[in-house]
């Protein structure tokens, strides 16, 4: 289920720990918090970390001062909980194939030996995000490939391009360097570009 326009949940109701408002918050952010947790702990632990984080969030809501946005505040709670779990186990963040890129958009034969395009990007017939999302098969294809992104890439993409967090905030949350974050973000974006480009060219996922 895609929320096209996320309405902001009423802060006053949240501070009062209103059941409906809190459920709405869970509905909007549970998936996102899981993505962030998975970038730090093992997938099996991520679920547990997020469940516990929801309890912390619920308890702390009356004291939420609104100095940062509520989503930044929640992402920070989750990433701290996940990092705490790692420390307890004396482990460091380990990423399997975090640098993997999907598709072949950047394959060597795209460019001539002088570094210029050999034939250039293909023409697209769907030239806007709206147009792309109307194509349900392509939308499903993007959904499927988002899930295939390495966890760290997916988290950086979510925090930057979906939630518009500044890069240095993302680095703090995930405990990574600025250059790390930039590489992960670029790989994720190029993979997603590959997916859209391949579909535009072939009509297939």
């Amino acid at each position, binding site marked *: 289920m*895609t929320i096209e326009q996320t309405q902001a949940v009423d802060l006053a109701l949240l501070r009062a720990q209103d059941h409906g408002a*809190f*459920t709405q918050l869970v509905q909007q952010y*549970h998936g996102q918090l899981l993505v962030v947790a998975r970038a730090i702990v093992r997938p099996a632990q991520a679920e547990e970390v997020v*469940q516990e984080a*929801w309890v912390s969030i619920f*308890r702390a809501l009356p004291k939420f001062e609104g100095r940062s946005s509520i989503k930044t505040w929640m992402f920070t709670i989750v990433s701290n909980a996940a990092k705490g779990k790692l420390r307890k186990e004396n482990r460091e963040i380990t990423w399997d194939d975090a640098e993997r890129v999907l598709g072949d958009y950047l394959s060597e034969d795209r460019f001539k030996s002088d570094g210029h395009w050999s034939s250039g990007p293909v023409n697209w017939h769907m030239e806007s995000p709206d147009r792309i999302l109307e194509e349900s098969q392509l939308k499903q294809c993007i*959904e499927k490939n988002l899930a295939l992104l390495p966890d760290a890439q997916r988290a950086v993409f979510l925090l930057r391009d979906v939630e518009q967090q500044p890069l240095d905030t993302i680095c703090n949350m995930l405990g990574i360097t600025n250059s790390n974050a930039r590489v992960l973000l*670029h790989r994720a974006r190029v993979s997603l570009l590959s997916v859209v480009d391949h579909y535009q060219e072939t009509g297939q996922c």
Partner: protein
Amino acid sequence: MLKCKDIVARSSDYLDGELTSWARINYRVHLMMCTHCRRYLRHFRIAIQAAARVARTGTDPVTAEQISESVQRNS
């Protein structure tokens, strides 16, 4: 002189304002002269925006209700 390959490699840094002002000027000069790279960057932006909207996925209401209830029971 930047090559098309460099334009692609630095496209995220360009979008995120992570290039120095000099690098940014060079980047723009290349874009002005190169239709392929202009098309690349346009596609890159569109794909990112579309994927970001797909990624904004909510949890199904039933699961959300279950989590919400168990949290409030434990608080």
